């Protein structure tokens, strides 16, 4: 490692101010700090610091997505061959899935990181690690057959208009990955909804409807078995189908403390409460669907675990997190059942609550402020 360090120290001056590659300073720094935690020491304030940093935190989230990714890759192949009516061996499915998923991931990272590096350079910041997560989230919420140029456009839109215009990672209001998906959903609905897109290179004769599409159209009796939905043997976006794989990810996030269990828990609670209310009402087949079905259908689990918990766009106060999560659950189910135009209620529910999260926090803060003012009045009066 000493040789590598020496090499970096050698070429470093070229990237500093006045050097030949001055314009690549941020990029160089990003790679340097990726390889080596820098030798910066504390100045003033606390002399010692925790070993945690943004890189480790973000990588933990990426690791938590690995189960969903792996399952997704296999399931792309699985669904494809089922639609073709071919019994394919395991590795064929994986290879087919890899061929679909890998280019999307590469495009997402290259486009997103490229923009991040550029903005870091013109702002004179270090590159923030936030996109390591967004770059993986975006492929996982895409349908397997999405054209690559669309991934590129959506990623660019999400990073620039979802994040950088607000000031970069930490300042954004909406979750960037969901912004990317919402962009495609509204800009190219034909590629993001309906029955055609959820299975890669689907045979035309095969229905390919997702469980949620079936539920929306009232064909609840032809929905797959609930265990199939739980394990994820259903068509859908690349990473969203297997609730089991997502639960593994949730476990990683909760054990390491990186993801908020409060948000996950309250999101699930919100969906169950709303689902049960609909059960009581029972006006149509979708309403009669057992409440827990909502947890395993579509993108609910994925959204609750990876999207709603994004600390930047979520509520930031402890009490606010419970309210925020609960409302996501409630509204996601509400949209699903009531609005046939948007079968995936989770995406819109999270985006909506992203917008309202500051308001929720505002009211939680007001509670604290009122207490303080009351105490002051009690002393004065």
């Amino acid at each position, binding site marked *: 490692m000493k040789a590598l360090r020496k090499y970096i120290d050698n070429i470093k001056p070229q990237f500093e101010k006045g050097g030949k590659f001055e314009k690549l300073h941020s990029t160089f720094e990003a790679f340097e700090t990726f390889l080596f935690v820098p030798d910066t020491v504390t100045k003033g304030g*606390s002399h010692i610091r925790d070993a945690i940093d943004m890189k480790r935190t973000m990588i933990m989230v990426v690791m938590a997505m690995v189960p969903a990714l792996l399952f997704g890759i296999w399931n792309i192949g699985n669904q494809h061959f089922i639609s073709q009516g071919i019994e394919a061996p395991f590795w064929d499915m994986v290879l087919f899935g890899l061929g679909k998923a890998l280019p999307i991931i590469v495009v997402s990272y290259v486009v997103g990181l490229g923009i991040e590096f550029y903005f870091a350079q013109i702002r004179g910041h270090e590159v923030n690690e936030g996109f390591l997560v967004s770059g993986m989230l975006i492929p996982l919420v895409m349908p397997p057959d999405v054209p690559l140029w669309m991934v590129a456009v959506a990623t660019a839109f999400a990073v620039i208009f979802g994040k950088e215009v607000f000031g970069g990672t930490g300042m954004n209001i909406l979750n960037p990955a969901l912004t990317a998906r919402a962009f495609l959903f509204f800009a190219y609905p034909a590629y993001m909804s309906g029955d055609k897109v959820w299975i890669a290179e689907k045979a035309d004769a095969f229905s390919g409807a997702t469980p949620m599409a079936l539920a929306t159209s009232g064909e609840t009796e032809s929905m797959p078995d609930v265990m199939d939905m739980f394990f994820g043997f259903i068509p859908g976006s690349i990473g969203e189908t297997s609730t089991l794989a997502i639960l593994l990810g949730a476990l990683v996030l909760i054990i390491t403390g990186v993801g908020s269990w409060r948000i996950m828990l309250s999101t699930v609670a919100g969906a169950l409460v709303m689902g049960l209310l609909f059960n009581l009402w029972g006006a149509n087949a979708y309403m009669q669907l057992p409440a827990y079905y909502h947890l395993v259908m579509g993108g609910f689990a994925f959204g609750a675990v990876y999207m709603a918990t994004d600390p930047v766009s979520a509520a930031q106060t402890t009490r606010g997190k419970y309210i925020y999560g609960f409302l996501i659950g409630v509204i996601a189910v509400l949209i699903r059942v009531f609005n046939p135009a948007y079968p995936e209620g989770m995406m819109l529910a999270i985006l909506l609550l992203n917008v309202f999260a500051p308001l929720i926090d505002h009211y939680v803060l007001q509670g604290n402020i009122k207490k*303080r003012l009351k105490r002051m009045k009690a002393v004065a009066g």
Partner: protein
Amino acid sequence: MSDTIKLKRGLDIKLQGEADKVFIPLRTRKFAVKPTDFVGLRYAKLLVKEGDEVKVGTQLCYDKYRENIRFTSPVSGKVVGIKRGAKRILEEIQIESDEKGDAIDFGAADPNKLSAEEIKQKLLKSGVWAGIRQRPYSIVADPEEQPKAIFISGFNSAPLAPDQDLIVHGKGKEFQAGVDALAKLTDGKVHLSLDARNKASEVFTKSKNVTLHYFNGPHPAGNVGIQIHHIDPLNKGESIWYAHPQQVLAIGRLFLEGKYNPERIVALTGSEIKKTGYYKTIIGASIKEMVSKNTTDETLRYISGDVLTGKKIRKDGYISFYDDQVTVIPEGNYYEFFGWAKPGINKFSVSRTFLSKWLKPAKKHRLDTNLHGGERAYVMTGEYERVIPMDIYPVQLVKAIMIEDIDLMENLGIYEVDEEDFALAEVICTSKINVQQVIRQGLDLMRSEMS
């Protein structure tokens, strides 16, 4: 009568190099008064020049904006150097002791028989007053004001902090005299807070004229700011005064002996110290004799105070006025290959992403000054709340300070906090934000707005 207040949030950082419980006399002739020790002292006006002979209690400088606050010499001898820093800020008034201890006589008296005004005058003239500070702002207390209460924290919960029970042992008379003098300065109570997790010294538990409180919890339970918040929270326009036990002792000695007796026991701590212990010395002593040939050979950081709030000093620097601890730890100026990706069996972190949290929760760490990452915008939430046991929203307060929103700062409780209360938040911050500096900026801004 006493009550126990239980605190759940906070963090005890376990470090190597706790001070051995032995007393060692420190032989040094070099002392200094450092005006920079006093927060909010904007301009210190000199009263002596190089070569002047001084006695214990001779005035060296004063606060230009609050002229009755005087800073006096801790030893008798000769002024041998005046050190100025950037913008000619007065940094050190160096004095070489003649070891005679000639002291100015301010007259012994029973504080119970003096008026508040007489007590104040005695404290101000002798310079002992500087030991009394006020919240908000942590500046030297304003003698024109009436505090609503006075707080003494009888324990220090910071990493490797000296044992206050050991320090006050056998000094009940001085402590009581100090408390009696302080009690005269307020219409409210004098609160003395003790650690419920240890048996406190009788000097504390048997002292009269105080209201005892017990705190049960990890650091920052020993911070006076946390204690104020739970016992008698500060509102806008109010002030509370506080003093550390050794300063209370100095006040007591002033009234018992009639002299400024700046004796100070200082714990020498830290993983890089070969022989730790409690040094008997005088305020403002040079650490040179303490640490020379007593450390490891690495690049070291010498800190007056603890690792959370202390000041970096030279290896021949001087102990700060309020400190009773010196900590020496290794500098962390090295690159670590894939440091962020390692399993982290031996790393210190409150985050559960490191194996050390699971495998070695009780490990005593040897920590260096490496920042372990780069500064970022806030991303993670709920971190600061884990280590600040107060009913405030810390990150929101920090952000209010960053945008200089005075009303919001007030509403979110700026008057109740101090840098030291946010020190742990700074340690655990994933975004590596210098929170203590931000809080200081906020307090300075409030102080300039209010005056």
